[in-house]
C-alpha cells in the first residue's frame, strides 16, 4: 500500500496553526492539522467547563486579530463576531476608582476628577502611543527582513522599515529607540502625576510578562497591547461572541472550506527528518504521517527540545532553544457567577458592568506582586485584569448568570518550594477570589464554579512551555528579526522543509493570526505557488 503523503502537516491547532493551514489549503495544498487535545484553538479556545457556562479558558479579549485576515477568510460567515467592549474601571489601593469611559468627554471629565493635569496630558500620551503603534502595526503582516542579508527582498523590507521609521521624524526616532528599553513606569512618569492613572496605564506593560512595571523593556509590552484595534479604534479591545474559541473555530471553518483536514487527539511525539529534510510526523499513537512540509505551531523551545531529535538539528540550535526566554508569569481564573457582582465605589452605571475591571492598586502594589513572582510565590495582592463577557454576550452563560474572566499577574511557573500541586493551585485561586472580594463584598457567595489555571496547567493543557502566554517573552532580544532566534526569523527553521508558525515567531504573542499567515506566505514562496495571504489594511494609511 502506498502511504498518503500530504503537502503539509501542521502540528497544533492553535489559531496560528489553523490560519497557516487555511492559507495553504486556499492555495490548493493538501494539508492536515494535527492537534494533541480533543478541542482546538490552543490558547484561543472556548470550553464549557460547567454546564451552561462557556469559558474562554486562556485568552479572553481580542484586538490584534488582523482585520485583513478576518475579512479575507470571511470569518464572519464562519460565525465570528467581534464586539468592542466598553472601557475598563481601575481600582486603586485607597478605594478610588478610575473609569475609562468610551465617550471621550466623559473619559476626560473622569480623569479631571483625579488630576486636571493628567486629563490634559492624556491627549499627548495617546497621540504619542498612536504614533509608535502605527509604526509597529505596519510590521505585523510582514516577514521581518534579515538585516545581514543582501537578498533583494530583505533589502526591500529593510528599506520599508527604514522609511516608516524615518516618517516618525527625528525626535520621535530617538524616543522610539528609548521606548524599547524603557520601563513602563519611567515612560508614564513623563506624562502623568496621579498614582492610579499611572498604575492603570502601566498594567498593559506587564501582561504576560516576567517583568515588573519598573523593569526596562516593559514599555514595549505596553505598546504591544495597545497597537491592536477594533474596527479602527486603535487600542480598543473586543470580545468574540461565544468566547475566543469562536475565532479558532471560524478559522478552522475557513480552512475546512478550502479542503484542509483537521485531526484532534493526534499529538505529535516526533518530527520525522530524512536526509536532512522534514518529511512527516509520528503521532503519540505511533501512527506516521508523511508530507513535503512540516509546520510547527508549538513554541520554539518545545519544537526543538521536545518533538525533534537533537541529532536532526544543526549544532547550536538545541542550545538556542533551551535558552529561549519563555518564563511563565501569568495565571487565569475563570469564575461562573450566579449574578452580576457589584463593586465598591462605583455608581450604579450599567455600562461600567459592560467594560473590564482592573484590580490595579498602584505601581508599588504591582511591583510587590512581581517581587513575589521572583521568589517563586504568588502574591496575596496580585494585579488582576477582569472582564465579564456575559454582561452582553448571551451565549456564554445562562440568562441572568455570569462568567468572569480573571487574568492574574503574577503567577510563577514553579513554586519556590517545589512544583505546583492541585492544593497549591486552589490556594492561588483563593488568593485571587479574596482580592476581588475586597473590592466586591459578597462576591464569594456568587461563585458557582471556578477554573484555576497556573502556568503549570497552561503548559500541561495547551503546551505553552513554562506557561508563557506569548510562546516566548516579548523583549527586544526576541522581537522582529530576533524572533525566535536571530537568523531564523523568516519562519524557515534550521531543518529543510520545517517551518514555524506559532507566537514564538514574529510578531509574537496574542491572537493576531499574523504568525500563521506570514509563515504561509513564506512557504508558498518556497513552493513557488501564488501567494494567498492578504496584505494588512490600515486605518491610519
Amino acid at each position, binding site marked *: 500500500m502506498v502511504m498518503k503523503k500530504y503537502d503539509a502537516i501542521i502540528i497544533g491547532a492553535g489559531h496560528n496553526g489553523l490560519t497557516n493551514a487555511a492559507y495553504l489549503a486556499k492555495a490548493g495544498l493538501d494539508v492536515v492539522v494535527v492537534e494533541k487535545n480533543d478541542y482546538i484553538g490552543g490558547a484561543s479556545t472556548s470550553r464549557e467547563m460547567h454546564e451552561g457556562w462557556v469559558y474562554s479558558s486562556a485568552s479572553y479579549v481580542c484586538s490584534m486579530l488582523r*482585520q485583513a485576515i*478576518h*475579512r479575507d477568510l470571511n*470569518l*464572519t460567515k464562519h460565525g465570528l*463576531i*467581534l*464586539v*468592542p467592549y*466598553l472601557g475598563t474601571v481601575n481600582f486603586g489601593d485607597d478605594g478610588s476608582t478610575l473609569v475609562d469611559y*468610551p*465617550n471621550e468627554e466623559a473619559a476626560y471629565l473622569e480623569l479631571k476628577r483625579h488630576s486636571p493635569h493628567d486629563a490634559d496630558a492624556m491627549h499627548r500620551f495617546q497621540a504619542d502611543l498612536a504614533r509608535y503603534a502605527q509604526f509597529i502595526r505596519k510590521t505585523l503582516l510582514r516577514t521581518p527582513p534579515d538585516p545581514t542579508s543582501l537578498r533583494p527582498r530583505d533589502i526591500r523590507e529593510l528599506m520599508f522599515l527604514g522609511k516608516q521609521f524615518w516618517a516618525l521624524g527625528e525626535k520621535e526616532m530617538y524616543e522610539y529607540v528609548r521606548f524599547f528599553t524603557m520601563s513602563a513606569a519611567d515612560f508614564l512618569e513623563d506624562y502623568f502625576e496621579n498614582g492610579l492613572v499611572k498604575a492603570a496605564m502601566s498594567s498593559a506593560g506587564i501582561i504576560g510578562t516576567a517583568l515588573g512595571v519598573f523593569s526596562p523593556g516593559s514599555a514595549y509590552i505596553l505598546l504591544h497591547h495597545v497597537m491592536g484595534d*477594533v*474596527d*479602527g479604534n486603535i487600542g480598543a479591545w473586543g470580545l468574540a*461572541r461565544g468566547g475566543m474559541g469562536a475565532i479558532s473555530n471560524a478559522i478552522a471553518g475557513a480552512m475546512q472550506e478550502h479542503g484542509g483536514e483537521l485531526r484532534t487527539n493526534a499529538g505529535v511525539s516526533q518530527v520525522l527528518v530524512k536526509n536532512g529534510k522534514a518529511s512527516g510526523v509520528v503521532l503519540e499513537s505511533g501512527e506516521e504521517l508523511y508530507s513535503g512540509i512540516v509546520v510547527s505551531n508549538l513554541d520554539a523551545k518545545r519544537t526543538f527540545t521536545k518533538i525533534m531529535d537533537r541529532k536532526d538539528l544543526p549544532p547550536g540550535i538545541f542550545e538556542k532553544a533551551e535558552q529561549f526566554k519563555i518564563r511563565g508569569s501569568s495565571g487565569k481564573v475563570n469564575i461562573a457567577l450566579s449574578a452580576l457582582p457589584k463593586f465598591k465605589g462605583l455608581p450604579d452605571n450599567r*455600562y461600567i458592568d*459592560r467594560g473590564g475591571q482592573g484590580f490595579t492598586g498602584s505601581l508599588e502594589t504591582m511591583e510587590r506582586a512581581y517581587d513575589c513572582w521572583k521568589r517563586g510565590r504568588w502574591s496575596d495582592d496580585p494585579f488582576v485584569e477582569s472582564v465579564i463577557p456575559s*454582561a*452582553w*454576550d*448571551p*451565549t456564554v452563560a445562562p*440568562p*441572568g448568570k455570569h462568567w468572569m474572566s480573571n487574568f492574574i499577574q503574577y503567577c510563577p511557573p514553579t513554586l519556590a518550594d517545589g512544583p505546583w500541586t492541585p492544593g497549591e493551585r486552589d490556594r492561588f485561586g483563593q488568593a485571587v477570589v479574596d482580592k476581588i472580594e475586597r473590592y466586591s463584598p459578597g462576591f464569594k457567595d456568587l461563585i458557582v464554579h471556578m477554573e484555576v489555571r497556573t502556568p503549570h496547567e497552561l503548559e500541561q493543557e495547551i503546551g505553552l512551555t513554562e506557561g508563557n502566554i506569548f510562546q516566548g517573552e516579548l523583549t527586544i532580544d526576541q522581537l522582529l528579526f530576533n524572533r525566535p532566534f536571530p537568523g531564523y526569523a523568516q519562519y524557515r527553521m534550521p531543518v529543510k522543509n520545517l517551518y514555524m508558525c506559532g507566537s514564538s515567531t514574529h510578531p509574537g504573542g496574542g491572537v493576531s493570526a499574523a504568525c500563521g499567515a506570514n509563515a504561509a506566505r513564506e512557504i508558498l514562496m518556497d513552493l513557488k505557488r501564488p501567494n494567498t495571504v492578504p496584505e494588512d*489594511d*490600515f*486605518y491610519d*494609511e
Partner: protein
Amino acid sequence: MNTAEKYADERLMRSHFHPREAAWNVRDAWASWNGYKFAECYYDAEYEYFCVRNSCATYDICPMQKYYVQGRDAEAMLNRMVTRDISKLPLDRVTYVVWCTDQGRMVDDGTIFKLADDRFMLTCGSPCGAWLKMSAFGFSDVTVTDMSDHIAALSLQGPTSCAVLKKMGLHGIDSAKPFDIRHFPFHGDTLMVSRTGFTGDLGYELWVNPELALQMWDELYAAGADYNIQPFGEEATNMARLEAGFIMPGMEFNEALKTIHFEHDQTPFELNLGWLVDFNKPHFNGRNALLKEKERGPKYTLTRLDIEGNKPAEHSYLYSNKRCTREIGYVTSAMWSPAVKANIALAMVKTDCLEGEIWAEIYYEKELRQYNKAARCSVMKKPFWAPARARATPPPDY
C-alpha cells in the same frame, strides 16, 4: 416668564415612550423624525448597533406613519395604489410594498398589515395622507384614518428578542414566522406583535394603545434585563439597515412627490425592487410606465458593493476605470461594517456598466488634510448581513 410656553409651537413632540427614552439618553443626543424628538443615539451608536447584532435592542417607531385603511373597498384601493398584489395577503400577515406615481417613480415604501378582510394598516416613513386620499378617489367604501399619533409602536430587534418576548409572557410568539402578526391580551387591551423590522436580524415590532405604552416598555425591559436589552437610535439603525441592504428615503431614493428635477427620483426597478411589481394583477398606479421601464431596463441599478480598504465611500462617485475619468454612478450609503468586517456600500450604478470594473473615488480627512484614493469595488449578490436566525421558526434563544 415661561420660555417653554413662548416657543411651545416650535418644539418637537414627544413620543409615547419619551419618559423612558429620556432617562436612557445619557448623551442628550436628539434628532427628529416626523415632528417627534428622536434619539440619534442613547449611549454609543456602535454599542447600540452591537446590541442589535448580539443581544437585543429597541427602536422607537412611534414617529413612523401609520394609517388604517378600512371598508369593503380597502383592499381594492390599496391594490390599485401599490405595485405588489396584496389580494392574496392572508389575515394577520404583513407585506412589504412600494407605491409609485403615474410615471412609475417611487413615492415611498412601507408595509401593509392585513388586520381583517376590510381593515389594513399601512406604515411608512413619511406622511402620505394626501396621497392616500387621492388614491381612494373613485372607491365608495373606504376610509383612511391617520393613526400615527394613536398607536405606540416599538421595534425589538436582535438575537435574543424572541427569548425576551417569551419571558415577557407572550406565549407562542416563537411560532410566529417572519411577517406573521400575533395578538396578545394586555391589561384589558391588545398587544399586537409582528415579526418585522428594519435590521435584517431576528426581530419583532410591538403595537399598543398609547395609554399602555409605558407599561409595555417596563414589562419588556424587565423581561429583557437579563438579555442586555438597550434602546438604539437613528445612527445604529442606519448601520443595521445598510448591512441588511434596506433602502432609505433621502439616501437611496428621493421621494417622487418631493422631487423637483427630472428623473432625480427612482423607479422600483432602479432600486432593485422589481420583484415587488406585479404586472399580473389588475391595473395599478404607474403600471404602464413601469411596464415600459421593465422592457427597456432601468438606467441605474441599486447595487451592493464590497469596497477594498476601510475608508467608507461616503458620497463617492463611481467610475469604470481606476483613473476615475469615466463616471458610472454614485454611492448612496456607505459604512465600515463592524459585523461583517467589510467596507460596504449601496450605490446606483449605470445598469450597462455593472459587468465591468467599478472604482470608487473615496475622499477622507486626516488631521485637517484631505485625501482621496481610488478603490476597487466588487458587486455583492447577497445581502451583507442575513443570519439564519432571522428566518428560523422557532428562532433560537440567542
